């Protein structure tokens, strides 16, 4: 048995020797990354799970200690904020990612064509990619400002009225935030899709047009199937990112007005950092983590990622 194993191993060892590499080399190479991730990702994650089972509130030290599932029962049965927050998170992710995908796909198809000024057009339409959440907030605060923003100039030419603040109205704040986030989110999506568009061999289109396929049919039979994996992956990454991202909403709306733009991560940050209730925040974190994991697996299953194409 052992002999068989040794024999089976030999060709591998032989192949490895051509690299003249000591067996330890790969471990040495991943050690820095591995240690950093153990210390600053794995350990914090485990401690979040640990804290979620504890009462841990800096302002109420007399209550601290093992809590069992108290924090979780509080989330699901006693906290009305949790469900509305979860609803807003879902709405935010679905609307945001859906629009980003649609617009990003169109944008990528447009700048993939050859036309005069393409390089400049690409650089310009992709430029908000580089912009941060806080900077996006800065820019859109200036545009949304009720007295000197866009609305004033639009009112001057007869659209809308003076002094409306889209950010303090519970009816408009959602779409105001969506537009601001789209502004910088679409280019990112478009870059990912464009990268994949360029790996489609042009001959396929030539062959298809010889066979008499119109542009629409070419799009649905060549372009989309080719992009499928890239779209699935980037949609998933974006959804997770949009779910987790707090920069924009934290600075643009602060979760308001009246809490209508509070996402789950925003609620966690508020509970943990401002409310000092680390135990409850950790339990919320655990719930968010489970939801993300579950949705991701479900999504990959439903989209049959990596399966037969």
């Amino acid at each position, binding site marked *: 048995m052992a002999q068989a194993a040794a024999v089976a191993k030999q060709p591998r060892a032989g192949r490895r020797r051509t690299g*003249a590499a000591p067996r330890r080399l790969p471990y040495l190479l991943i050690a820095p990354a591995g240690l950093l991730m153990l210390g600053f990702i794995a350990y914090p994650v485990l401690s979040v799970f640990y804290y979620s089972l504890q009462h841990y509130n800096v302002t109420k030290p007399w209550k601290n200690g093992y809590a069992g599932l108290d924090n979780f029962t509080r989330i699901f049965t006693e906290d009305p904020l949790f469900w509305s927050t979860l609803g807003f998170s879902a709405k935010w992710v679905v609307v945001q990612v859906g629009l980003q995908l649609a617009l990003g796909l169109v944008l990528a198809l447009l700048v993939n064509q050859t036309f005069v000024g393409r390089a400049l057009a690409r650089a310009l339409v992709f430029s908000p990619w580089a*912009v941060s959440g806080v900077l996006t907030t800065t820019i859109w605060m200036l545009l949304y400002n009720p007295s000197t923003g866009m609305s004033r100039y639009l009112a001057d030419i007869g659209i809308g009225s003076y002094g409306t603040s889209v950010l303090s109205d519970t009816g408009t704040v959602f779409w105001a935030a969506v537009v601001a986030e789209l502004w910088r989110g679409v280019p990112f999506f478009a870059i990912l899709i464009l990268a994949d568009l360029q790996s489609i061999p042009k001959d396929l289109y030539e062959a298809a047009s010889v066979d008499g396929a119109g542009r629409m049919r070419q799009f649905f039979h060549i372009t989309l199937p080719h992009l499928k994996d890239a779209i699935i992956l980037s949609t998933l990454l974006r959804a997770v990112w949009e779910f987790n991202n707090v920069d924009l909403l934290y600075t643009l709306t602060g979760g308001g007005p009246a809490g209508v733009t509070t996402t789950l991560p925003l609620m966690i940050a508020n509970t943990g950092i401002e409310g000092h209730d680390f135990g409850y925040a950790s339990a919320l974190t655990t719930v968010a983590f489970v939801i993300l994991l579950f949705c991701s697996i479900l999504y990959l299953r439903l989209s049959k990622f990596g399966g037969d194409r």
Partner: protein
Amino acid sequence: MTAALAEKGTHARVPAPDDPTPPAPARKARGERAFDDVPRWQIYVPLGIYLLFTLVPFYWMLLFAVRPAGSTSLVPWPLTFEHFHKVWNERSFGVFFQNSMLVGLATLVATTLVALAGGYALARFDFRVKNGFMLALLCSQFIPGALMLVPLFEIFRNMQMINSLGSVIIAETVFQLPLSMILISGFIKNVPVSLEEAAWVDGCSRFRAFCAVVLPLLRPGLIAVGSFAFVHSWNHFLFALMFLSEQDKQTIPVGLNTLIGADSVDLGALAAGGVIAAVPVVIVFAFIQKWLITGFSAGAVKG
């Protein structure tokens, strides 16, 4: 990617003149029209609308930054730099700028070096924990940075690194690492092993072979990854907000947030601060834009 390359290669090698169809020019013209010659207006009109959506906000920020306070003109004339002067000196954006630069460059160097080592191991070796490690890299993408704030805060407090830029640099590097490593190992896989092996045969050590043969070919990918790390840490807000409480340690996004949250918002100063925050990333972006697309297509999507 390799498959795609090979496919592209074979297609390119089919010599067009050998095509037996007699009306070759007509066929070609028709073929090109179908996939290349979309009517011009169908490109320029939607693109123009999208450009407006992209550029008007930028213009708005520039306008407020260089327009005298109280003016409502849509053309910023006469230009004034009082707002820049004010945020740079009175609102200490000069200090924030330095801090952000330091965090950005340190994160860039640390991320690239650590991810290069790890990416090489993942691309070129089979080792026991490799699959588990790859899985961990992917899973880490699902862990929200915001949710790690509390435990990270505790860790840095125990390390006595609260209020030091080091804490932010470490946190940014750690959260850049997984994606950077996945990308870099993808790039390295695209460099044929035979090139390295040839260098070994010529007597190079593995390290020398890597530096002389692989590294130059990785340049576009490394630029994409490095600039990604820089831009991310330059822009990222939450870690700096939470780990740095002294004002002279803050970074630009936090400075911007204080301007946004100020009781009476000074729009001119806010806009000027925004311009200062945007300039470095826009410069980086202008340089790497071309590599970004090729970098992604080589590393991320097919890697």
